[in-house]
């Protein structure tokens, strides 16, 4: 197999794996965070402002791990540094 083909096959497959596995954890974490926040708001509706603000900041922190995986995927597909070594 040509080394260019090898690099592209491996990077495309790895990109799919990265975004697939990288979104499992944040999805579970965000679901858990939202369910906890909803039950807290149901218990204490007066504190809804504080809870919502903290929830949004926390969701962004959790989501950033998924975003890192997305950035790595995009680099693998569109800006792979290893392709330049094998391009004729």
């Amino acid at each position, binding site marked *: 197999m040509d080394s260019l083909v090898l690099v592209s096959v491996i990077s495309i497959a790895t990109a799919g794996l990265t975004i697939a596995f990288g979104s499992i954890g944040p999805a579970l974490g965000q679901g858990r965070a939202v369910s906890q926040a909803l039950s807290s708001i149901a218990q204490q509706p007066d504190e809804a402002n504080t809870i919502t*603000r903290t929830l*949004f*900041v926390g969701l*962004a922190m959790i989501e*950033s791990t998924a975003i890192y995986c997305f*950035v790595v995927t*995009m680099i693998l597909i*569109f*800006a792979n540094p290893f392709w330049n070594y094998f391009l004729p």
Partner: protein
Amino acid sequence: MTINPDEIVLFQWGWFKINSTIAYTWLVIFVLTFGSWLVTRRLSSEGKLSRWQNLLEVLITGIKSQIREVSRQEPGPYLPFVGTLFIFIAVSNVLAIVPGYVPPTSSLSTTAALAICVFIAVPVFGIASQGVLNYLWQYIQPTFFMLPFNLIGELSRTLALAVRLYGNMMSGTIIVAILLTITPLIFPVIMQALGLLTGLIQAYIFAILAMVYIASASKTREEIAKKGEK
């Protein structure tokens, strides 16, 4: 489709290049500065407010109350920095509904520059509020062996700040571009609307996180004073 708006060169003269990130950043700066100048030219404190003055007052009061709630301090010294971060990022994200506009925040250069601003502002505010020695004392706070971990934490949160904003904005444009090739009629519009929401939330989160970092560096003197009283 490109993941880096730095590569879109609008104007080139020899080695002097204007790429779309620079051009649209200056556009946003111009819109903000000129708009604020236009609104604050005729301020009135009594009678009927003009609607634009009302808008700016609501915005500033909202930012002030958010800073006060997050940091539990008076927002005075932090308002210019944090408010500027929020307004700049929010405007440059929301203008994405204008066709042909590329948000400068979807380039890693812009977000890295903003994150470096936060990285520099944290020690500046910390030292200004509690002095050099007290600020540096925080780095060896639990024990001396935590020093490298504190330094790594400082660097990695700056990186996270930059990549989070960049990834969110870049993913918005990429998703719309991909959807245009699959379902070009209605669905991209929904994702654009979702992108507006994401842009505002990311601006809010960037400003709030900057405020949290600054507050954690500058809060300790009051805590030290409270401990001294006890």
